[in-house]
């Protein structure tokens, strides 16, 4: 299939289907994140990317037989390596005998949050989640380093004029968007703080908040969005999220316990766990929102800059 637009749409449909079979397998948190990220934001970012690269794939100039051979050998070695593992879903596997019962039995007394997924993600495995947040932050820095366009003041004036006249004809979309964006942001806040009791948490909330900002940008134009959302504030917000997450761990260490042991944060261990989970989910939400907005604005900036250069040249 050569048409990249169709490929992106198929990827989005695949993400939505995998979200629905995650729901069928009772993994609602994962389904939520997959639907928000895969079927929503990721499809949109890839569509913005093909406005820059062009819509169809370049014809392949050589048949990649050597690459295919390497892939087949590596794949078969990996499959051979997994033959020693227990059968998929077998109840005799060590993870079902030792790890899972310990989490399920002790999570309520030790941490006191009804949602075990959040307690595993945010408290038992906080270090891994810290790694995820740092990876997201690094992706944002990478996009900034590669794609950031420095704007001069006279360019900004001309692009303002181009964009003002664009959205006059999208009346219905403008009104419905203006009505809906506060509710989308409110829902993002709800998901952020409700992660203890139901599906939710920082990652999903960050993606939904960023989706609200994308909707605003798409309907009202990049210039207006850039005036509403200050670029340096967004960059600082991304860093603040990771900093908040790390500081919680450092404060735990300064209070005498290990890194990311939240029981050191308050006089009562369970209250300390609640406080720790709240703070790190806040950090995760901040970083995810800011990085998504950075990526989208920088992709769209590239397209605008190249369009503007074409207009100046012609």
């Amino acid at each position: 299939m050569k048409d990249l637009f169709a490929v992106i749409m198929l990827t989005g449909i695949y993400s939505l289907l995998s979200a629905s079979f995650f729901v069928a397998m009772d993994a609602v948190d994962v389904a939520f994140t997959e639907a928000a990220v895969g079927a929503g934001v990721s499809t949109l970012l890839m569509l913005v990317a093909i406005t820059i690269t062009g819509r169809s794939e370049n014809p392949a100039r050589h048949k990649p037989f050597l690459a295919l051979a390497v892939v087949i050998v590596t794949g078969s070695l990996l499959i051979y390596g997994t033959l020693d593992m227990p059968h998929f879903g077998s109840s005799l596997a060590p993870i079902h005998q030792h790890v899972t019962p310990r989490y399920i039995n002790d999570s309520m007394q030790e941490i006191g949050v009804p949602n075990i997924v959040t307690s595993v993600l945010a408290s038992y495995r906080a270090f891994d989640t810290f790694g995820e947040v740092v990876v997201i932050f690094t992706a944002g820095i990478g996009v900034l380093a590669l794609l950031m366009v420095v704007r001069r003041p006279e360019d900004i004036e001309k692009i303002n004029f181009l964009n003002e006249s664009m959205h006059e004809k999208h009346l219905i979309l403008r009104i419905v968007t203006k009505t809906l964006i506060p509710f989308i942001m409110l829902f993002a806040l709800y998901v952020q703080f409700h992660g203890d009791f139901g599906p939710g948490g920082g990652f999903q909330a960050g993606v939904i908040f960023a989706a609200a900002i994308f909707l605003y940008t798409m309907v009202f134009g990049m210039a207006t969005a850039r005036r509403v959302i200050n670029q340096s504030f967004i960059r600082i917000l991304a860093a603040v999220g990771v900093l908040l997450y790390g500081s919680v761990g450092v404060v735990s260490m300064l209070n005498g316990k290990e890194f990311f042991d939240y029981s050191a944060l308050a006089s009562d261990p369970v209250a300390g766990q609640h406080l720790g989970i709240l703070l790190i989910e806040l950090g995760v939400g901040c970083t995810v929102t800011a990085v998504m907005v950075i990526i989208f604005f920088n992709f769209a900036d590239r397209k605008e800059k190249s369009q503007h250069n074409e207009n100046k040249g012609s």
Partner: protein
Amino acid sequence: MMDIFLNITSSLFLLIGSFLCLSGGIGILRFPDFFTRMHAVGVSDTLASAMILIGLMLQVPDAIVIVKLVIILLMTLLISPTASHALAKAAIHNGITHKIGKTGESDKELSSNP
């Protein structure tokens, strides 16, 4: 008595919703043109999800879940027609034209058949 009544009405709503969703799907496959297909699925899918949500509302015992379902219903009623509108606008912007209802060609075809 109330339980039986609630169960029967909720299953009725769910069945009507599923039937509407199915007919929307058949409409996508059978209609000849982009705009007719989109109209079929836009109207029937919105009403189908509204029926299914009302059917689910009749099943739940506590009030907080009903409030959440009402909010989802209102959001769906607002967002789904807007999405169809955005699709149609994008189609016109990209130059997709309607195939049925063009008076010149179809009239000539009809009049040329004996």
